[in-house]
């Protein structure tokens, strides 16, 4: 009796779900993230233009280490945003391995910062720059992170923490690139404390809400 009763309830549910069915086209995994990527880069360009590009930018373009940093940041931005897009599908488009790419890039990024910090020493920072870079970074990242979180919320992720981590990595690398273009202080101690640490803390805070934010 009890089994029949339960079967009826499941059958009822199936009937209701069938009644609610509306034609839908399969979601494209690349379209939204491509729009986000282009819009974020344009937005970053606008903010960099508004804040003013660093005066020695032309010279820095001949510095291999500076270019390496920018390329590492760009690779992290692209791979993390792509992983975030795939993670907003329940089965991650069956490409779970993709998470390894941004994580590895981030690992090499951290190693790069540590190696340079050891080589340079944690140089004292100008007081002016302590809040200044963090504020500019927030300006560069606030709209892209909101947009990316909304995109993930509209998806159906089964890995909320990973999805949030990828969002944070993508937007942090965007901010990092932007700050390298506007801030003329190249000391790694400064970059680490002002360009990365505030956003890592904000990101970790957001991570606590990942499961609630991406609930469906």
């Amino acid at each position: 009796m009890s089994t029949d009763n339960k079967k009826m309830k499941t059958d009822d549910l199936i009937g209701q779900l069938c009644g609610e069915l509306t034609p839908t086209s399969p979601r494209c995994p690349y379209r939204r993230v491509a729009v986000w990527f282009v819009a974020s880069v344009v937005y970053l360009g606008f903010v960099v233009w508004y804040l003013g590009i660093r005066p020695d930018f032309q010279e820095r373009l001949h510095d291999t280490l500076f270019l390496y940093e920018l390329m590492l940041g760009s690779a992290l931005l692209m791979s993390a945003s792509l992983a975030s897009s795939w993670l907003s599908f329940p089965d991650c488009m069956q490409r779970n391995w993709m998470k390894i790419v941004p994580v590895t890039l981030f690992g090499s990024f951290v190693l790069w910062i540590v190696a340079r910090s050891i080589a340079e020493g944690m140089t004292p920072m100008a007081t002016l720059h302590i809040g200044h870079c963090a504020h500019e970074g927030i300006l560069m990242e606030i709209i892209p992170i909101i947009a990316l979180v909304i995109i993930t919320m509209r998806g159906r992720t089964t890995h909320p923490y990973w999805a949030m981590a990828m969002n944070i990595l993508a937007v942090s690398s965007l901010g990092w690139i932007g700050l390298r273009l506007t801030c003329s202080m190249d000391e790694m101690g400064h970059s680490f404390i002002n360009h990365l640490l505030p956003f890592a803390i904000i990101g970790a805070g957001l991570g606590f809400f990942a499961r609630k934010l991406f609930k469906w």
Partner: protein
Amino acid sequence: MSGVRIPPLRPFFPLFLGGEKYLSDQQNQPDQWQEWAAAAQKGDKRAYAALLGELAPYIKNVIIKSLSNPDAAEDIAQEVLISVHKSLDTYRPDRPFKPWLMAIINFRRTDYLRKHYSQRQDKTTTTDENFEFEASNVTIPNNAGELKDIEAALAQLPEQQQRIFRMIKIEGYTAQEVANEMNMNESAVKVSAHRTMKKLQGLLE
């Protein structure tokens, strides 16, 4: 009888009993689901009903293996069906169906287990030197089911579940009315009310 489960046939077994059809059905099943899911995305309700009809027992079978309480399998299976419905647009017909479904099943099962263990932890307490707790929470044997017991049990549930339960079971609203009021899906409201009832039964036992 509800606890009895028939284990799936081992691969060699059907060969003795004309089981080629069983084997080929097992292999073709995901392909068939893939086709039905693709048709459902185009709005084919018959294909969708066939898909959900086949998925329901399959999901239950998968879930029941990892649960100590087989009754919960029905709840989780229904939740998975609702999730499949909500996320139908994230299935791409050019990709296999089963990994997509399994990801949803695992997600909902983990969700259930997380809630289950957190609630069990909440219930763990000691009455030693805690007379106030004992007086307000411990029910006298053979006296369970009083209104205060029901109210106390209901108060332990999440606020949304309490509200849905009160509106449907006490105030007499229909599921559709509650769904409109709470901005929810009607089927989700029904599932929630059903689950609340089961939880209350468990709490009052």
